[in-house]
C-alpha cells in the first residue's frame, strides 16, 4: 500500500517537473518569436530610414542638375540660336548643335523626372501616374515605346507607400524602354476591397528569370520586388526570352 502511494506521488512529482520544463520550453519558443518580430521591425525601420535618405539625396542631385547643368545648357542653346551666320555650312553646323542640345536637354528632363522632388499626396497618386505615363508616351526622347493603360481608382496610401508605387511604375517603364526594347507596354491598375492590383505586360526581349533574379545585374527587377515587399505586397513576375515580360503586383490596402 505504501509503495502504491509512493508511486502515485512520484508520478505527480514527475508530472509537475515536466510541466515546469514544458513551460520553459514554450517560453523559449515564444521568446524567439518575440525577438524575431522585434528584429524584423527594427530592420524595416532601418530600411525606411535609408529609403528616406536616398530620396533626399536624389532630390538634392536633381536640384543641382536642374539649377546648374540644365540652366546652363538652356542658356547655351539660346546663345547658339542667336548667332547669325551668312555661311550655309556654319548655319547647318549650328542647327546640328542646337538639335543635339535639344536631345541632351530631353535626356536631362527625363533623368530629372526620376530625381526631382515628388510631392505625392493620397489623392494625387492616380494623377501622378497618368501624367507620368502620358509624358513617356509623348516624349520625343523615346518614340519607340507606346504605353496602353487603364488606371482605375487608387485607394488611399500614405506618402511613403505612394512613392513606392510611383517608383515601381518608373522602374517598369524604364526596364521596358532600356532593357526589353519593347514597343508596347500594357498597364492595368485597379483596386478591390482589400488590394490594389497592378499588371504590366510588354512585348520586349524578356529575360531569363533564374539568372536575372540571382545576378547583380537584375537591380531593376529586384528593386520592384523589394518595393512591393515593403508594401507587404506580392510580386508575380513571368518572363521568357523573346516572349516579353509580365509583372503582376498585389498590394494590400
Amino acid at each position, binding site marked *: 500500500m505504501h509503495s502504491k502511494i509512493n508511486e502515485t506521488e*512520484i508520478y505527480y*512529482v514527475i508530472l509537475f*517537473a515536466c510541466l515546469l*520544463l514544458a513551460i*520553459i520550453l514554450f*517560453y523559449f519558443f515564444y521568446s524567439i518569436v518575440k*525577438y524575431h518580430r522585434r528584429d524584423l521591425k527594427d530592420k524595416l525601420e532601418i530600411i525606411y530610414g535609408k529609403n528616406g535618405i536616398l530620396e533626399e539625396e536624389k532630390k538634392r542631385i536633381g536640384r543641382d542638375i536642374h539649377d546648374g547643368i540644365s540652366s546652363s545648357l538652356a542658356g547655351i542653346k539660346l546663345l547658339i540660336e542667336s548667332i547669325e551666320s551668312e555661311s550655309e555650312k556654319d548655319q547647318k553646323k549650328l542647327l546640328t548643335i542646337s538639335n543635339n542640345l535639344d536631345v541632351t536637354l530631353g535626356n536631362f528632363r527625363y533623368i530629372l523626372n526620376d530625381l526631382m522632388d515628388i510631392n505625392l499626396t493620397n489623392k494625387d497618386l492616380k494623377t501622378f501616374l497618368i501624367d507620368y505615363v502620358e509624358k513617356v508616351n509623348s516624349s520625343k526622347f523615346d518614340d519607340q515605346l507606346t504605353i496602353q493603360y487603364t488606371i482605375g481608382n487608387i485607394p488611399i496610401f500614405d506618402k511613403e507607400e505612394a512613392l513606392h508605387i510611383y517608383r515601381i511604375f518608373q522602374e517598369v517603364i524604364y526596364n521596358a524602354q532600356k532593357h526589353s526594347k519593347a514597343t508596347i507596354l500594357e498597364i492595368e491598375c485597379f483596386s478591390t476591397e482589400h488590394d490594389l492590383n497592378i499588371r504590366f505586360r510588354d512585348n520586349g526581349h524578356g529575360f531569363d528569370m533564374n539568372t536575372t533574379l540571382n545576378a547583380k545585374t537584375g537591380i531593376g527587377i529586384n528593386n520592384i520586388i523589394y518595393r512591393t515587399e515593403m508594401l507587404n505586397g506580392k510580386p508575380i513576375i513571368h518572363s521568357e526570352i523573346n516572349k516579353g515580360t509580365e509583372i503582376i503586383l498585389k498590394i494590400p490596402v
Partner: protein
Amino acid sequence: MKLMILLSLSIFLPTLAGFFLFLKNKTITPFLLCLFLGSMVTIFPILIKDCYLINSVINIYILFELVLFLFQFKKWGLFKNNLNFYILISLSILVWLYTGMYISDIGIRNNYFRVFYSFILVLSATDLVNKIAFERIKLMTDYRFIICIGFIIFYCYNIIIETFNSTKLGFSIPTFYNIFIIKIYLNAFVNLLYFIALLCIAKSMKQKFIM
C-alpha cells in the same frame, strides 16, 4: 570527498576574477555581489555547525540571490517595463515569505522557493539568450550569453531536484548523495563558465583600452 570540497569551493575562481573587475566595470555589480555572497555562504557551514542557523542564512541568501540576479537582468536590458520588474520582485518576496514563514520555517530548507527561484531564473536567462541572439554579435564571446547558459544548465537541474526534494518522497541516502554529487559537478562547471565570462569582460575592456 576532498575532490567534492574542492569542487564546492570552485565559486572562489569567478569571485576572485570578479574582485578585480568590481571597481572597473559597474554593469555586472549585482552578479559580482551574488558571487561574493555565494562564496561566503559556501564557507559558512564549515565555520558554523548549527543546522537551523545555516538553513536560515541560506534561505535569506537565495532570496537576495534572486533579487540581485533580477537586477542584473534588468541592467542587461531585459525588463524594459519597470512595472513588470517590480511585480516580479514583489512576487518573489511574497513567495519567499509564504513558503519560508507560513508553510515552512525559516530554519528549514525552503525547497518550494528554490523551485520558484530556479524557474524564474531559467525563464529570464532564456529570454536574455534569445535577445542576445538577435543582436548580431559574437555569441560565444559574449559574457552575458555564457552566464545565461550557465544559469539555464544549473537551474534546470535544480528545478527537477528541488521538485523532488519539496515532496516527502524520501530519497534513500545513497540516491540523495548521487544526486547531490551531480549537482556539485554541475556547480563546478557553471562556476567555470562564470570565470570564462568574466575573462571575456576583462578581454573586451582591454581591447577598448587599446583602441
